């Protein structure tokens, strides 16, 4: 072993030791403030608080509570912008035609993708279904589901997946189903309030001061946070189908052939 190589080895060891020492004993001063701002206190005391039922979103995960309850209307218009972009891409690239199955990637990539894509589907569903409990939610879960569809599209080719049911029309239908479901969920409490003869807010989840009607937040002790659970699941379906549609159009749009 030459002196040069020994020097490289020693410097690598010294660097690793110095970095771990600095991180362990806080020499880099990456400190977190210990006091909370009033806004943070307000959110923490109202995201999930059965004692303040009339002010609480009853959603244990703070970020999802803000996204789908405190500022639900804002999120709704974000979704509208996202689908506007997808509709724009579809309009630009035109309809997708029926393709013959392509060669795709190698046998090894195909075999691994069979297993991995299946596992990613499960993980995406888990992220969406735990949106009200842990970080994540409908959009994140849907984007993860779309990853599974995208790697399958690349590995097996668009034509091969079309033969097995991943079609342009199917994805449009699935995306529309998710969007219609979101709109219905938004008006669920309003519809219920009409039958009770009182008025409620659009996007209302839990009972609010002056509106003593709202969704249940748990069933037999299982917390699902009312509308938040439905919005997460439906958003995941709509986002996954939307992304899938986008990739189908990007891969296969704008080519002459037999119309699907």
């Amino acid at each position, binding site marked *: 072993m030459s002196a040069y190589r020994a020097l490289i080895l020693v410097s690598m060891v010294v660097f690793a030791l110095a970095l771990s020492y600095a991180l362990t004993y806080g020499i880099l001063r990456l400190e977190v403030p210990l006091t909370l701002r009033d806004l943070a206190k307000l959110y923490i005391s109202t995201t999930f608080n059965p004692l303040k039922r009339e002010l609480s979103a009853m959603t244990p995960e703070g970020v999802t509570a803000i996204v789908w309850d405190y500022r639900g209307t804002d999120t709704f218009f974000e979704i509208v912008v996202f689908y506007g972009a997808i509709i724009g891409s579809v309009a630009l690239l035109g309809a997708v035609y029926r393709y013959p199955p392509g060669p795709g990637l190698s046998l090894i990539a195909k075999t691994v993708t069979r297993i991995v894509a299946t596992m990613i*589907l499960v*993980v995406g*569903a*888990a992220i969406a279904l735990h949106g009200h409990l842990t970080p994540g939610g409908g959009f994140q879960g849907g984007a993860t589901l779309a990853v599974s569809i995208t790697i399958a599209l690349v590995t097996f080719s668009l034509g091969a997946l079309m033969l097995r049911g991943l079609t342009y029309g199917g994805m449009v239908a699935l995306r529309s189903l998710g969007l219609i479901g979101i709109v219905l969920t938004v008006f669920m409490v309003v519809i219920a309030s009409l039958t009770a003869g009182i008025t409620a807010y659009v996007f209302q989840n839990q009972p609010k001061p002056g509106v003593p009607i709202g969704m249940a937040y748990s069933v037999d002790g299982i917390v699902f946070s009312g509308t938040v659970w439905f919005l997460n699941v439906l958003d995941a379906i709509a986002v996954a189908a939307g992304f899938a549609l986008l990739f189908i159009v990007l891969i296969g749009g704008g080519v002459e052939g037999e119309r699907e």
Partner: protein
Amino acid sequence: MMRFIAVFLLGFLVYIVFTGSVSLYDIVSGLAVAVIVSAICSRYLVRDERKLSIARLGHLISFVIRFIGAEIRAHADVTKRILSDIRKAINPGIIKIPYEVQSDYAITMIANSITNTPGTAVVEIDPAERCFYVHWLYVKTYKRDEMKREVVSFYEDYARRVFD
């Protein structure tokens, strides 16, 4: 039916491990997700469900344990080569090695095991000629049988027992 159950178990296991919790909600939602995913995917994951057996699973587990040993030896070998005189320590080359297993899973298991151990990497597979092209950091021999014994035989034996 067997293939549905196998993929269902895989899905449920991944769901619970990813969630990291076993409350009633996790179990009920995990069961539902695993049923749906297995209904969609199981026919693409398992072609011949008569092959699903405990004995094959046992071979797979014994392979994983022995593979860890092979992995450590390969890491130690490559580390030694990196730290010694580079002109003498490596003799890189791409070799062609035929395989004799039949199923896609067996071929993939051999190829990924070769790639995962440092020092060797499968760069191309030719299903028509039934052979791998493997990049080898230190080509020890140019004899066909010896190359096969050095690089592939250990994995091929197990791949045949687990998947073929």
